[in-house]
């Protein structure tokens, strides 16, 4: 029986060998493998649109695929953290946004702009203030006076609490001598739902960028009271800036490409040239103009200077007494989790007392071989987690599938080709066609 099995093992090894060799021996000049462009925000949003467009153009410049990976969540913490901690081999770029200079001031992360090597600032979008078209305030000054006359009677939104548009709005109130707490900020995630609530009468003003409000603005449903920028937008010449209206306040979001610090200088230079060519290309300029984003290009030094200045400005706002005063939402962040947790605990106790946690009679019994197989599946998954990055997807997954098939007593003659074919096909589909960065392992470089 055992001697009979040996040729099968040899066969399996023979089948797996070309797989392992397939990706070997590649020491071509940089860049020789796909790049990852991390986007800290969800697919379909403004930043994602910029990222995907830049990726396509970068691909053309560099000659290798550039895959956008949406590392979303945590108000941008996840993506910004991953980008800063990525391996500095020149294969990971991050499209960083204004939140980099805000999150650390709010204590959400310790990643600040110093954790990055800035490459190029590629776009800025300034905040603007919108009210319904039938609102009683014809101008910025009228709104300001109304707020001053009756503090805490108006409601505004545009993003979640502490987001860039909230900071812009609070900074405006601060700049004109009002307290940021004089207007109740309703925490609504995103400009689109906030604008909808504005139309439904739940809000009095919305602060967001002009491209985000473009549809309602052009439909005449809302009015723009002013743009928090140094100069007017070419696409919307009718909107005055705050400065023209006598308020010394400008604030907006920005997007820039950054590297984790420590990328070898030759590789960095290649990337910088490619990014510069992209930003200056006709294609990019047309894209930003059409989407209503404002194009800006600042090289590494200017970008670094901008970052330092912007960071100090954000720090001043976010740590100011005035801004802290706003932080008194009537329902705290832990209220809901405590409520749900308490209900869960009570329910678990009720279940225990009513005896319903005992094993139901008609359930599949937990046999010893069954439990062993369950442990095996969990163990194989854990082993894959540990080994995948070092070995690479194909050998690690091939091993995992083979072990399972072997333990399930599938004959080698069936198991080996099934495992080899399935793993290779999945690799081809996911890494090849879909661009998923499956680990390439020790030959990946």
């Amino acid at each position, binding site marked *: 029986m055992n001697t009979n099995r040996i040729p099968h093992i040899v066969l399996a090894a023979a089948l797996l060998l070309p797989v392992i060799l397939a990706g070997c021996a590649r020491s071509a000049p940089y860049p020789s493998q796909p790049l990852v462009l991390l986007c800290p925000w969800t697919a379909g949003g403004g930043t994602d649109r910029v990222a995907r467009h830049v990726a396509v153009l970068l691909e053309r410049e560099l000659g290798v695929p550039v895959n956008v990976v949406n590392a979303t969540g945590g108000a941008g913490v996840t993506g910004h953290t991953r980008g800063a901690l990525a391996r500095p081999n020149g294969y990971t770029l991050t499209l960083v946004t204004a939140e980099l200079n805000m999150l650390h001031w709010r204590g959400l992360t310790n990643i600040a702009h110093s954790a990055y090597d800035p490459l190029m600032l590629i776009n800025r979008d300034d905040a603007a203030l919108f009210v319904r078209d039938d609102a009683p305030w014809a101008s910025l000054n009228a709104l300001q006076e109304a707020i001053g006359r009756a503090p805490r009677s108006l*409601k505004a939104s545009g993003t979640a609490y502490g987001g860039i548009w909230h900071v812009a709005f609070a900074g405006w109130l601060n700049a004109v001598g009002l307290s940021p707490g004089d207007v109740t900020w309703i*925490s609504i995630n995103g400009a689109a739902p906030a604008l909808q609530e504005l139309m*439904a009468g*739940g809000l009095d003003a919305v602060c967001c960028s002009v491209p985000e409000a473009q549809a309602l603005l052009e439909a005449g449903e809302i009015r723009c009271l002013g743009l928090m920028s140094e100069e007017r937008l070419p696409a919307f010449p009718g909107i005055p800036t705050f400065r023209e209206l006598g308020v010394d306040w400008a604030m907006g979001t920005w997007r820039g490409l950054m590297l984790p610090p420590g990328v070898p200088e030759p590789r960095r230079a290649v990337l910088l040239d490619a990014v510069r060519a992209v930003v200056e290309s006709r294609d990019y300029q047309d894209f930003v103009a059409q989407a209503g984003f404002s194009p800006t290009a600042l090289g590494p030094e200017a970008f670094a200077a901008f970052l330092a200045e912007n960071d100090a400005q954000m720090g001043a706002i976010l740590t100011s007494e005035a801004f802290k005063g706003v932080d008194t939402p009537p329902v705290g962040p832990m209220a809901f989790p405590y409520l749900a947790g308490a209900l869960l605990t009570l329910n678990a106790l009720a279940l225990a007392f009513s005896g319903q946690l005992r094993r139901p009679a008609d359930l599949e019994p*937990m046999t010893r071989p069954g439990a062993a197989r369950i442990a095996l599946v969990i163990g194989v998954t854990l082993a894959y987690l540990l080994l995948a990055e070092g070995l690479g997807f194909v050998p690690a997954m091939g091993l995992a599938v083979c072990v399972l*098939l072997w333990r399930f007593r599938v004959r080698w003659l069936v198991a080996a080709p099934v*495992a080899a074919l399935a793993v290779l096909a999945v690799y081809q589909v996911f890494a090849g066609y879909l661009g998923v*960065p499956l680990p390439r392992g020790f030959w990946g470089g």
Partner: protein
Amino acid sequence: MGEALTQALMQTVASPRVWLVVFCASVYGTFVGAVPGLTATMAVALFIPIAYWLDPVAALAAVVTMESCAIFAGDIPSTLLRIPGTPASAAYADAAYQFTKRGQPHRALGVCLVFSVAGGLFGALVLIGLGHQLARVATLFSVTEYFWLYVLGLSCAVLVSRGSTLKATFALFLGLVLSTVGLSAAHAQARLTFGRPELFQGITFVPAMIGLFGFSEILRNMLTLDRERDAKSTPPKTRGALVGPALRLLGRRKLAFVRSGSIGALIGMLPGAGADIAAWVSFGASKRTGKPSADGDDHALSGIGDASTANSAALAGTWIPALVFGIPGDSITAIVIGVLLMKNVRPGPEIFEKQTALVYSIYLLFILANLVLIPVGLLAIKAGGAMVRVPRRILLPLILMFCIVGAYAVNGSYFDVAVMLATGILGFLLERREIPLGPVVLGIILGGPLEERFVQALSGSEGVLSALFGRPLAAALGVLCLALWAGLAAMKVRRNADSAP
């Protein structure tokens, strides 16, 4: 409207890409549905990572087709082997198997196919008829009404669940607690993250679904893996007229068909209840109303037909609350909402106004999917014997591979694979105690919006709780919710009093 309809036609029927997707999805859905132990929900959960790279219409085409096909295909092993391919076929597995025992599986399978297609089309009509009407009502809703609507949806999930109410509420609260992991939407403050930045975004949806519905199924199958050989008795060949007699039966039971279709669509609309419960209820109703004096075979086939109608009609029904309010009607639409959000399509009344073409496309896709089911279903019945015998010992390792790759793919993160593993073990343990997974998923999906609306409604009123009843519509919904719970509690108390001496 004409323009949107034309665009929808262009996007669906006239698009070769959609046809390709529909074809692949029908094969995949049929296969997963026909293999006992693999469910329609699992088919959809494993598909999300791929949906991520498709455009919204193609992704939805795939989901609609694979669920329609999987729910029918589940009837094949339940007829041939008395092992339901998906939970939706469990209600009438015994009845259908009786025909196989007598060597006439074609009679039951023909009825299953014809009534599935007809039921699916009926459900699509209900969706088309009700979708826009409900959406018009929904535009009147502000954050407060939405708060109550979410509470109502969650309560329904508890009410309709089979088995112990306490276990259903436990599942619901567990889902709600899991939904609070990460930054709170309203405050942007981290909670229950244990310092892991990956958890700031909450428990990632895709790996959690793959874990709950894919990985946990693998674990469950591990217990019965060595019994595979016994069940391997060769299923009989299916020969004989499939469609003709079934169509004649349908013609004789028009009224009953409308009844089962309506039961299916209505139960589908209730959050948390899907095809499986629809089949049970419709089968029960059919048994009660049927005339036992009639021909015994005819009576049995009627029951099978009514249940098949209901479980297929329920599929479109589950999409109604999902599209109009963003409240999933079952676990599959919960995943669909996740896919839509990933595509930056936010379900709600606005999509009926702003993305009319997408909504019409969904209507068309339901009709298309059910028409595709006719040839695919006939082929599946012919190939049925071979399909239900694919050895799980080869299939399950490959499914594990898809679980791992799928969890990893969307964010390219190993942490997500760990999330998949953890939620998979959790799902397995919950099922071992017969705690339903549906309310858990509903809690995870609706927990975030529920909390957000709650905080928003209260921050407008400076925290006064009565603001939740501030608008007439909100007050009405609120009272309805409270009445629902009071009624449930009263029923429990009375039942306890009855059982006590």
